[in-house]
């Protein structure tokens, strides 16, 4: 009858547990042992830390340096490809895609806006090192170090050209993604870049259905459209793209002089090779000048419209914050009939915190979101106007050149240049390998 007794206790305690906070109760006082029994200590398995951050930083730095050397000096697509495979294996599959420079962007923005938030030096280093290298050598990071870029570059089978207007429109998505990621990270909602990383499922061979579907679709698109994530979504790529405009050295298609043979014209799967731009015809110059003036006059208006729209989007964005969505849930349960409780609301009611304090907390977060919304909308309006303004500026260009911002330094175009072939032949001849 011991079992019946047990069932009775269970039933009694079950009723009890509904009525009170069950977490700090000592229902059965811990015993004083008479024998020699000693309570075991906690095992505290520690992280692998130690030398790993140093190894990671050293590998990142040497990969960046090596990539820049291969792109600018050795000019060998094959070597770049090998480095790319290494980066994919180490930063992707071995480190499981974390820590990565793209995600570190969110830590850095929280760090800059929130005085209480501290981040490890490794994260700062992963964010900063590619930026500095980009200011010097262009996007070497995208070329052969970023594991996400490597996945897409390796799986590009049959490149299809994207029309320029579509390319420019889709690129705007990356700015939206960047602004949204910073906004939500700073407000404390979540790190969406990490949450919706499409290729992390491949690195970890494990993901939920949504990410699997999204990653699969992007991967298949990537068979035909080169680096779809890098070009149209990557928020870190947006920063690198702009810094690359300022780079000290840039990728050169030809090792010597361009003779406008047009052979490289279709070499770039990412649409980053610019054809020569002749000097301005008088008529277009006047038209463009007029457009530029109109755009500059419109700029403040568009900015304020953007900021206003951003602030109107704030309530929707605020809903991604756990405290706000919990407050909404509790409000629904209090004021509407037939609303089912969630795990979160059940826990909240058991925790003994008051509903008013939750509402106040949520209201504070909503206000923060509204303030952020002005910047979010303003930034996106600024980017839009910047794009339009750039369209009315024209820079005279004599040769076929890799576009500073769009070029990811993959090195595919080198072999298309006849001058490159010539210099390679000369090198082989110097070594006495082949005589022509």
């Amino acid at each position: 009858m011991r079992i019946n007794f047990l069932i009775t206790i269970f039933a009694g305690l079950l009723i009890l547990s509904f009525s009170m906070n069950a977490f700090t109760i000592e229902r059965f006082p811990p015993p004083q042992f008479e024998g020699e029994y000693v309570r075991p200590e906690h095992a505290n398995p520690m992280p692998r830390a130690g030398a790993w951050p140093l190894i990671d930083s050293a590998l990142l730095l040497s990969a960046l340096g090596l990539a820049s050397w291969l792109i600018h000096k050795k000019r060998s697509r094959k070597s770049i490809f090998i480095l790319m495979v290494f980066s994919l294996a180490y930063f992707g599959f071995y480190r499981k895609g974390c820590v990565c420079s793209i995600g570190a962007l969110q830590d850095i923005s929280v760090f800059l806006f929130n005085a209480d938030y501290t981040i490890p030096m490794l994260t700062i280093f992963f964010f900063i090192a590619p930026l500095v290298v980009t200011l010097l050598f262009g996007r070497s990071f995208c070329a052969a170090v970023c594991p996400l870029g490597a996945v897409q570059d390796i799986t590009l089978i049959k490149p299809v050209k994207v029309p320029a207007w579509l390319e420019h429109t889709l690129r705007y998505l990356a700015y939206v993604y960047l602004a949204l990621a910073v906004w939500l990270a700073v407000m404390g909602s979540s790190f969406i870049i990490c949450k919706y990383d499409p290729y992390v499922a491949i690195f970890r061979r494990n993901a939920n259905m949504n990410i699997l579907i999204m990653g699969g679709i992007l991967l298949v698109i990537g068979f035909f459209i080169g680096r779809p994530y890098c070009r149209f979504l990557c928020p870190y790529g947006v920063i690198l793209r702009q810094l690359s405009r300022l780079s000290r050295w840039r990728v050169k298609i030809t090792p010597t002089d361009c003779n406008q043979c047009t052979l490289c014209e279709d070499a770039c799967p990412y649409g980053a090779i610019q054809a020569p731009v002749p000097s301005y015809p008088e008529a277009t110059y006047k038209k463009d000048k007029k457009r530029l003036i109109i755009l500059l006059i419109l700029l403040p208006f568009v900015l304020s419209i953007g900021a206003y729209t951003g602030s109107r989007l704030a309530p929707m964005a605020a809903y991604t914050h756990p405290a706000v969505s919990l407050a909404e849930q509790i409000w629904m349960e209090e004021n509407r009939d037939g609303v089912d409780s969630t795990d979160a609301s059940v826990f909240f009611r058991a925790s003994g915190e008051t509903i008013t304090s939750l509402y106040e907390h949520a209201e504070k977060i909503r206000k923060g979101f509204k303030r952020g919304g002005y910047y979010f909308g303003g930034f996106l309006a600024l980017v839009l106007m910047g794009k339009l303004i750039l369209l009315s500026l024209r820079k005279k260009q004599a040769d076929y050149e890799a576009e500073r911002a769009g070029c990811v330094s993959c090195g595919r175009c080198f072999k298309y240049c006849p001058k490159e072939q010539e210099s390679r032949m000369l090198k082989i001849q110097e070594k006495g390998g082949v005589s022509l």
Partner: protein
Amino acid sequence: MDNNNNDKKKSRREFLRDALRGASLMAIGGVIGLGLYRGKNATYAWQIDPYRCSTCGKCETACVLEESAVKCVHSYDVCGYCKICFGFFEPQPNAINEGAENQICPMGAIKRNYVEDPYYEYTIDESLCIGCAKCVKTCNGFGNGSLHMQVRHDRCVNCNQCAIALVCPSDAFKKVPVNSPYLYKKGDKA
């Protein structure tokens, strides 16, 4: 690069580029400086606050690792060493013994050892534990709550955004300093 060409436009462009590059480098230096000044190289790790855990069981399935990094741990100074343990036995066991059909743990990861009358010690074999929190739920509900969940840092890969923290209904995941990454329950007397 030589700037001694006569093309005025081009040299202005180069100058602007150099100036902006310098400004960007200074901004980057500023971020590093701020990191050194504020961070003191603080590294953080994810951990579960046991007093906020709602024992929903999502830790078992939401972790990016195939076998979750979250395991059940036992705080012995909170434990009542009950003979009939709510974290060990099924709510309606056939018999009070170690038979698998009587245990609540689906993996048989909890070991029950006799200490002295009427006390029994319960230890967790973490290599078997899958982090389902079934034992934690009943131990919290009916016992002292000495069984609770913790992120095990020899397994945790320390994701930038913990996948379990995203779905945790009670917001129990915290970032704690990496030097002391555990939040164990402590007894009243301790």
